[in-house]
């Protein structure tokens, strides 16, 4: 972040700002990359903003392990509880509107009003998904009239660990729009933030850490998409992957790698994130489980 206290005349500033170290978010903790690497993140004009952690393969694997560990607890809780946790994220984000508007503005080069609108939409997106948590089973479930004396019903269940290659352009709203549809149904997430604009996602992880989202449910990596995405796509303990932030031919390669353990693959590209989402992403991470039981005595 450019230091507001730096003066153009070169005179000593009244107060030196305390800068933030932007780290990874894995298993509820904020480690630096185990590789010790970082990379320079600039604003939309090319000015220095911060050094972000340059995640390694090991970081990606740690994040998947953390997501797997968190899955049983998160998916095993009630849908009502997940809805409240997602709503809690919106509450905390609302209190940090100004901070996020400034971060989005710096990285995406939006005007003040535009940046505020994007942050508002991101907050509202959490609220929208929060409301879905305890409705999915009714909308996507079924009681099935089979031809025999059996009670038979189908329910949606989360598929497991979802890797998300977040959109490259929309650093906050796009990021929220690809992780919320995965976690709302009980999946856990490893998200690779926008390579060029990772800072709003890192700041969001600070919100997640202080909300009621259990550690490991959402893990955030920053770094090179081309370096990290292939490790996520080929990881045998990842159940689904959203290739949104991967470009054309590399997305094809990632989809081929994802076939190795038959990951559910979302290929919907970048979109107008300000619109009400379709159900595509939410449904992509659901399995349908059908249970039979005799109903005759």
């Amino acid at each position, binding site marked *: 972040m450019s230091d507001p206290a730096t003066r153009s005349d070169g005179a000593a500033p009244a107060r030196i700002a305390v800068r933030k170290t932007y780290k990874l978010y894995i298993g509820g903790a904020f480690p630096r990359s185990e590789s010790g690497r970082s990379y320079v993140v600039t604003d939309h004009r090319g000015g220095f903003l911060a050094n972000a952690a340059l995640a390694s393969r090991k970081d990606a694997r740690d994040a998947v392990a953390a997501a797997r560990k968190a899955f049983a607890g998160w998916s095993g809780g009630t849908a009502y509880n997940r809805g409240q946790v997602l709503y809690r994220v919106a509450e905390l984000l609302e209190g940090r509107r100004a901070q996020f508007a400034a971060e989005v503005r710096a990285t995406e080069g939006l005007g003040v009003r535009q940046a505020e609108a994007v942050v508002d939409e991101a907050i509202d997106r959490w609220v929208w998904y929060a409301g879905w948590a305890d409705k999915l089973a009714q909308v996507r479930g079924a009681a099935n009239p089979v031809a025999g004396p059996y009670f038979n019903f189908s329910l949606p269940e989360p598929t497991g660990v979802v890797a998300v290659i977040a959109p490259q352009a929309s650093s906050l709203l796009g990021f929220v729009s690809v992780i919320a549809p995965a976690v709302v149904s009980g999946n856990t997430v490893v998200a690779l933030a926008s390579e060029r604009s990772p800072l709003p996602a890192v700041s969001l992880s600070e919100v997640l850490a202080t909300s009621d989202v259990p550690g490991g449910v959402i893990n955030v990596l920053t770094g090179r998409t081309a370096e990290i995405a292939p490790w996520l796509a080929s990881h045998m303990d990842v159940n689904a992957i959203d290739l949104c932030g991967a470009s054309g031919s590399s997305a094809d390669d990632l989809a081929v790698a994802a076939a190795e353990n*038959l990951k559910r693959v979302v290929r919907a590209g970048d979109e107008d994130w300000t619109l009400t989402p379709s159900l595509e992403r939410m449904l992509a991470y659901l399995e349908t489980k059908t249970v039979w039981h005799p109903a005759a005595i």
Partner: protein
Amino acid sequence: MGKFEYAPAPESRDIVSLRESYGLFIGGEFTPGVDDRAFKTISPATEEILAEVTEAGPADVDRAVSAARQAYEHTWSRLPGKERAKYLFRIARIVQEKARELAVLESLDNGKPIRESRDVDIPLVAAHFFYHAGWADKLEYAGYGPAPRPLGVAGQVIPWNFPLLMLAWKIAPALACGNTVVLKPAETTPLTALAFAEICQQADLPPGVVNIVTGAGETGRALVTHPGIDKVAFTGSTEVGKEIARACAPSRKKLTLELGGKAANIVFEDAPVDQAVEGIVNGIFFNQGHVCCAGSRLLVQESVHAEVLAALRRRLETLRLGDPLDKNTDVGAINSAAQLAKIRELSEVGEAEGAQRWSPPCELPVKGFWFPPTVFTGVSQAHRIAREEIFGPVLSVLTFRTPAEAVEKANNTPYGLSAGVWTEKGSLILWMASRLRAGVVWANTFNKFDPASPFGGYKESGYGREGGRHGLEAYLDV
């Protein structure tokens, strides 16, 4: 208990009139293959040659896809849903009318007992067409938007374990949703698919809406990689499923896969033993164990292990193995020499790795492909017979002490197609059902199927569902 003596009660095969050779069904007509290549399909129970079948090459697949495309664009997609429905109802009725003929043909070509083809396969085929017929003009109520669109031409590849039933699972929803299809039956069981082509002719189904191309893996590859296909549906092994997923990844074709399984059938100490034993037998010896959702891993609570195993052995001694067309037969022939070799190999590995092998006294016919019902005890989770899909009448028995251990062991597999739970305790059933990572959970029952009931796997058992409202998604542009 003495064994009952049965007089043979063979179903007559006169009802089936086989042709010497079959062409490909393309554009509503049987046509010869471009390369003039053919293969023979045999009865696995006797190794008798039943007929010669055309092997479709890439040029034939191309013709079939063109016919399907033309039918899609000029006829089928323009037909109102309520008219499409009537064709499907017609097909359902003709299947019912020809039920006996189809059952005999299925048992001849596949080796499965007539009791199964007659009482399970063919009635379910008719039910699938009947069920999906009703959807054709009601798709806007299925939950996929106000005017869901078909995808176009579907390329479908099906296995040999339920030949005509798998055809119905594929073709009925595809047609109901407004798609046209090119379907490839398995190379060892093409005959009922070709009989189905004749049913399409009888039903006056517009030419090109259904095309049947026969052949082996190469024909399947030509079909799923054909650029004129919008949708690929495959049922078969996980290995081939992954290959198809890789091949389809760059093309963005919509893909659904029903693949392998290694289902746990879990028996708790409070389960009624006799019912559980029937469920275990049905779970693994139904259709000679050639079932992707077969209950091939029996998990028995330690406290009742001896009792359940003794009852299971007693029951297996009464199973009758032999002539698939005999109405008394419980266990039919293994579908092919290749499959028999695979079952033998894995069973030998089971012994070599230290598990104890047992089969009831059982005389195997001299000709044909046969394998006795087999139970392995003392199996550990590391054994290959506990990890790999055998796809034969081979049961691996493991034990557990607590429900949590049962869940842990049941889920310890890359597959996730089905599972069984046997207990009288309702809360335990629901607790287990919510923790088993499998697409179908049978509680106090096993291997039940219905067109209204979604079927499909978690994890490496594939993706997408077949049956029910959920199954329509695979054939709609959503």
